[in-house]
């Protein structure tokens, strides 16, 4: 062991980490690059909301397209790359054997990122599908599916070849995310792109996919990391662990049923929205259990846990807000407004990104067997990210609430509404600026830690059974 990472936890680098080093660093690195691309696009789209002529002459960045590009770069670029890296690492570590199938993983990552790049150019030239979270043009979607399959080979091998007897919550979430996404993705492709269903059934199917992508893929990827890191760093078993499986299965069985969340009062049967109310209410159980399980992270200190604590609070709060705004009386005012954007950004930037950051800060020193290049950058990133998310979500929520009230008053013109929104929208731009600045620090720090630096000789220590560190259950 060469040195300790900056967060103070002991660096127990194992064969698992050394074999998986380059494939996983490749995944994380590409994820962070896409995060920056998405951040630049977010800045552009947010400026366009208060100054509509900004970049309007550039057809590649006209507002509608730039919004789709931003979302795609975030979900398929950042969250997918980083999340898959975390899921595979967690599966390999808890399975107790080095990652296998790393060639497949490498090829898959290469083509996945190629697909994201082609997809963004496709959206920019007018081939977006217009379905939320599924904006990638139809012609790259098969490529995405195949390259995902190649990446998942490593996960399948790590899961089926695990040495340890029991399984842990971190593994459930990792396996669920890896296993469910291809089904979700291909089923959505079939009913929306290859053999599209008619009329507004498409809206229901698109809602099912968008909610499924969040509850069955993105959130589990983030939770896999959090459930692994929290007990590791705090050195204590997860609290109330007996409830973990209930929380897990609630999310898996109920999550995608909330697909009608955005169709309240829309041209679909009322039961679609009612089902969303019911499932969002049931999901509150899941959010509370996750909070109970991971509450050991709150106030425990350390880089990784600081990020994860923020993510955990944002995740729980976001879940409660989802269940409240699913009710018709509230949706009357919040639907179609920036409140929806606030909820989405709370979930994506507040919960998902923060948990991924926390896990990455824990994971990268173990992969590289070197501490992070700069502790100062980590601290700055933390404050920029925290401030950015808080400002972003508050500005969007307050602006959206005012916008909703204005929309309900038929005499208020759109010019007046935009006049009222000016200040919140400027704050949103500032918030995206903070987030982008923080993420640039992350990229620089990551590159310096991964590529630059002294000797790369690694001492491999025998794998340490993590049993005592993980959970109360064997």
């Amino acid at each position, binding site marked *: 062991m060469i040195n300790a990472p900056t967060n103070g936890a002991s660096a127990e680098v194992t064969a698992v980490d050394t074999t998986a080093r380059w494939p996983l660093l490749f995944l994380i690195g590409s994820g962070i690059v896409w995060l920056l691309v998405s951040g630049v696009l977010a800045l552009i789209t947010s400026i366009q909301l208060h100054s509509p002529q900004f970049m309007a002459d550039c057809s590649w960045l006209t507002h509608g397209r730039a919004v789709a590009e931003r979302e795609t770069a975030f979900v398929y670029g950042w969250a997918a790359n980083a999340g898959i890296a975390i899921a595979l690492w967690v599966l390999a570590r808890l399975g107790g054997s080095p990652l296998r199938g790393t060639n497949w993983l490498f090829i898959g990552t290469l083509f996945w990122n190629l697909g994201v790049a082609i997809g963004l150019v496709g959206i920019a030239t007018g081939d977006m599908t217009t379905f939320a979270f599924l904006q990638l043009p139809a012609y790259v979607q098969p490529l995405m599916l195949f390259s995902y399959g190649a990446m998942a080979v490593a996960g399948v091998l790590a899961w089926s070849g695990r040495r340890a007897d029991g399984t842990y919550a971190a593994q459930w979430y990792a396996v669920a995310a890896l296993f469910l996404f291809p089904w979700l993705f291909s089923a959505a492709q079939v009913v929306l792109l290859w053999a599209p269903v008619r009329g507004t059934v498409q809206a229901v199917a698109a809602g099912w996919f968008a909610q499924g992508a969040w509850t069955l893929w993105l959130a589990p990827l983030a939770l896999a990391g959090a459930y692994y890191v929290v007990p590791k760093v705090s050195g204590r078993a997860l609290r109330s662990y007996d409830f973990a499986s209930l929380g897990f299965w609630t999310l*898996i069985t109920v999550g995608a049923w909330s697909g009608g969340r955005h169709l309240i*009062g829309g041209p679909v049967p009322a039961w679609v929205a009612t089902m969303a109310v019911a499932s969002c209410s049931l999901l509150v159980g899941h959010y509370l259990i996750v909070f109970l399980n991971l509450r050991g992270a709150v106030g425990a200190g350390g880089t990784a846990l600081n990020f994860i604590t923020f993510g955990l609070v944002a995740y729980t709060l976001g879940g409660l807000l989802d269940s409240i705004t699913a009710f018709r009386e509230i949706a009357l005012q919040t639907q179609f407004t920036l409140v929806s954007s606030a909820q989405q950004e709370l979930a994506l930037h507040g919960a998902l990104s923060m948990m991924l950051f926390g896990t990455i800060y824990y994971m990268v020193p173990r992969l590289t067997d070197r501490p992070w290049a700069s502790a100062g950058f980590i601290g700055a990133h933390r404050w920029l990210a925290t401030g950015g998310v808080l400002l972003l979500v508050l500005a969007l929520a307050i602006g959206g609430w005012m916008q909703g009230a204005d929309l309900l008053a038929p005499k208020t013109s759109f010019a007046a509404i935009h006049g009222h929104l000016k200040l919140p929208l400027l704050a949103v731009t500032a918030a995206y600026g903070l987030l982008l600045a923080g993420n640039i620090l992350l990229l620089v720090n990551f590159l310096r830690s991964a590529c630059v630096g002294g000797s790369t000789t690694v001492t491999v220590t025998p794998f340490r059974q993590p049993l005592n560190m993980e959970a109360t259950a064997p």
Partner: protein
Amino acid sequence: MKNGPLFLIGLFIALVLSWAGLVLGSHVQFGALTPYYDDTEGASFPSRSSGIAARGQFVYADLGCAACHTQQVRRPDFGSDQARGWGERQSVARDYIFQSRPQLGASRLGPDLTNLAGRKPSAPDAEDLMKLLYAGSGLHPAYKFLFDEREIVGQRSDKALTLSGKLAPPAGREIVATERAQSLVAYLLSLNNGYDYPESRPLPKPAAGGHGGTTAKHGETKMPEGKK
């Protein structure tokens, strides 16, 4: 959860159930809606849109207009959609059966466009829309790339925009709408859901003590039970 295969089967069943319930269920219930034939008018509704308007919907989709505009009117007692002149009735599933990719939208940074061509008291005409698309406004981006600036050869094109002031092109040149701009405007001008389907009418109010406001409270879209 020591049993690996059982775990995976459980995951799979959970996903299939949600897919079957939401997507398949919706498809079975209203995936095969047919146009409504009105005996008195001797025509069926909705009517298919013309070729150019159908092409225009693709332009609408590829520019991502749905990022700021919805195309779904909520029922009169749910929000201010009716009061804003966006539509006299709620949108129903049957309105969309001929649209290859309905653009319901989820954000109203701009107005709803469901009934743009039937807007009360006055609907915009082609010239208004062309000018908005070319020049933009304080609230709306410009789409200059949908227009060509070219030299006037012989007679002025009948597709040329009449612009004045700062926007006017230099002498001897004209601004002409491309085919994409023309189909987009044709599409926007085809947006009109004037016809009242049986399922879009509010439920009859109860005879006694019916002061309105409670009708069809939770029935966004009543599925048709035949003609009433």
